[in-house]
């Protein structure tokens, strides 16, 4: 089932086009990554999905229902963790979550249970009576997530949730994204940190200047650029080396020996590193260093747009 369907979405601010005829579908159970540099239109798209901005053209459907005509249904099924923290510093952690869950119509014991569940999920149950002003950046982020998930939405949107926080909190958040996904939530995750997107997302759209320029799993995206990888092995001596024997290894395309460096070009999707190393060990050739160069999403972005993700 399509949790989210976007058709020909366009948003203009004056004559500036922030989102340009964008079409996307996100299926149930995906962790969908929006990868793009600052100002690519990620947040604008998310604000339109959340109903905070109105589009100029196109339509957005949540669980098959148009958000323009069924905005209440859409809002009830979305949880949004905005880029800028949306919590009240003068309310306790518990009160913050209760407030936001209350906005979604939860009442009574159900409200209490859900608030505690959400706080427990983000690991803040023991801090529920504390004020967020005394929290670290990471804890505030986690509280922000608790506010967004207490009403158990089908679709959770996280807009750059790891900006400006410590590595521990970052890992905690990435793990909780995975957990939410295992519990049946579909997640939209935007970031300009390529590593995060590559780590957790099942499908990724590369966005630039308001357009989706490429979309697919990370393997598919990398395959746009190349389907080979380079393995460079620096050896002590190449006396007993036989190029043809390395070529026999599954997946290897070409072998070049330049002085002490053996340059192997291999198909990217075949995992043959073990076999290659095994070859050198069997021949008693000492490996001094080994370098594998496979494309990552950063190279994909750089190659397609000519710019870096972070300027």
């Amino acid at each position, binding site marked *: 089932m399509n949790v989210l369907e976007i058709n020909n979405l366009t948003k203009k601010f004056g004559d*500036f086009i922030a989102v340009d005829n964008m079409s996307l579908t996100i299926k149930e159970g995906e962790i969908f990554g929006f990868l793009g540099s600052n100002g690519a239109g990620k947040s604008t798209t998310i604000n339109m999905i959340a109903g905070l901005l109105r589009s100029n053209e196109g339509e957005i459907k949540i669980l098959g229902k148009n958000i323009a005509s069924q905005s209440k249904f859409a809002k009830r099924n979305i949880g949004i963790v905005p880029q800028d923290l949306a919590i009240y510093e003068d309310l306790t952690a518990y009160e913050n979550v209760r407030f936001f869950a209350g906005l979604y119509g939860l009442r009574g014991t159900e409200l209490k249970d859900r608030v505690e569940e959400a706080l427990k999920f983000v690991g803040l149950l023991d801090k529920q009576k504390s004020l967020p002003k005394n929290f670290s950046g990471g804890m505030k982020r986690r509280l922000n997530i608790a506010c967004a998930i207490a009403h158990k939405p089908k679709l959770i949107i996280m807009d750059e949730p790891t900006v400006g926080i410590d590595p521990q909190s970052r890992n905690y958040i990435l793990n909780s994204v995975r957990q939410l996904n295992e519990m049946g939530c579909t997640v939209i995750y935007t970031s300009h940190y390529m590593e995060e997107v590559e780590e957790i997302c099942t499908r990724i759209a590369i966005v*630039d*200047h308001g357009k989706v320029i*490429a979309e697919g799993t990370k393997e598919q995206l990398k395959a746009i650029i190349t389907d080979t990888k380079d393995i460079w092995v620096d050896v002590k001596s190449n006396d007993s080396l036989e190029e043809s024997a390395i070529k026999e290894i599954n997946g290897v395309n070409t072998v070049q020996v330049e002085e002490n460096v053996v340059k192997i070009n291999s198909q990217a999707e075949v995992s043959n590193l073990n076999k290659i190393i095994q070859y050198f060990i069997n021949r008693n050739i000492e490996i001094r260093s080994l370098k594998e160069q496979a494309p990552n999403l950063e190279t994909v972005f750089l*190659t*397609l747009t000519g710019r870096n993700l972070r300027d």
Partner: protein
Amino acid sequence: MELWIIYTKLVVVLFLAVSYAHANVDNLPNIVFCLLLYISMNSILYVFSKERIRQGILLGSVILICLSFYDVNPLLILLLPINFYELASPFIKVKWALLALGLIPVFYLPEAEYLYGLVSAFSFVLFTMATRYSEKMMMYEDKLDKMRHDIQRLTASLNENQEYIKQSEYTNRLEERNRISQQIHDSIGHSMTGALIQMEAAKSLLSLDTEKAKELMQNAIAISKQGIEDIRITLKNMKPPTEQMGVQRLKLILEEFSVKHRIKVPFVYKGNMDMITPIQWKIITENVTEALTNALKYSRATEISIEIHVLNRMVKAEVKDNGKGAQRVVKGLGIMGMEERTASVNGTVIVDGTNGFSVTTLLPMG
């Protein structure tokens, strides 16, 4: 919509006629006169297309009904609601307000207020239904028009592309034929002629100097062998140089541009150019030309670099200048044209003005 309203009016008029026929009223001629006046006013309405005139006539009709209500027969007020709705609907957007206004006369009627209420409500229902259906109809017609327009546009571009494919096939064939005839003329033709001359000489020398004739024959054999080898090579190289044509054509355009406008236009290409199809070449060439012209017009650049990069599953063609760029890119007809062209083969165009100005065309392959 008009038909519905006419039917409603007809029903009311018929109702009045029947009720008068049964009731035996005293000033029947006046009533008939009023009714006829009403009918003629409401028929003449459809002769005019101008909104102003129609409203004027409707207003006249409303006044006529009010006058005849006071002076001729109170029952004639039943004609009022539908005329009133017609007149007021462009000004009052809230439907219920319309109904409420239409019902106001109920309180001032000396008699037959229930009848009036009923007729008013009935007219209201029919009127709103009619307007709603006509609105829907209009929307569908709009949609249909749009779709028709789209189809037309798409067919046009399809035809254009097909035309191009046909043409490029034809050019390919022509160039290939030229190449082969050139080759045959240059090498095989020459060797055949050479061999022929040697054989003719051998024939004349055969009875006089057998040794010499033998030598000449040997030469002819060698030349013929070489000729056969040449034929083989020519046939082997028969693969048409489409990919080279694309690159060459673009190079030619760039060179011309560079000379004409005195600007540096470096051109780099990477990857396997064979993978680019003729239709992709067409789009790339057109987009590059368009981007060059734009750069020349707006950028004040001293150098415009062009890069074509064939990746594993995509072709990327980038035109980038070192000019002043643009913080906010405003799409004009040129960029929209490029986008449309590129979208016809499922590609995208990225326009970026943050560092100089660049137009990147991305076309998927396979």
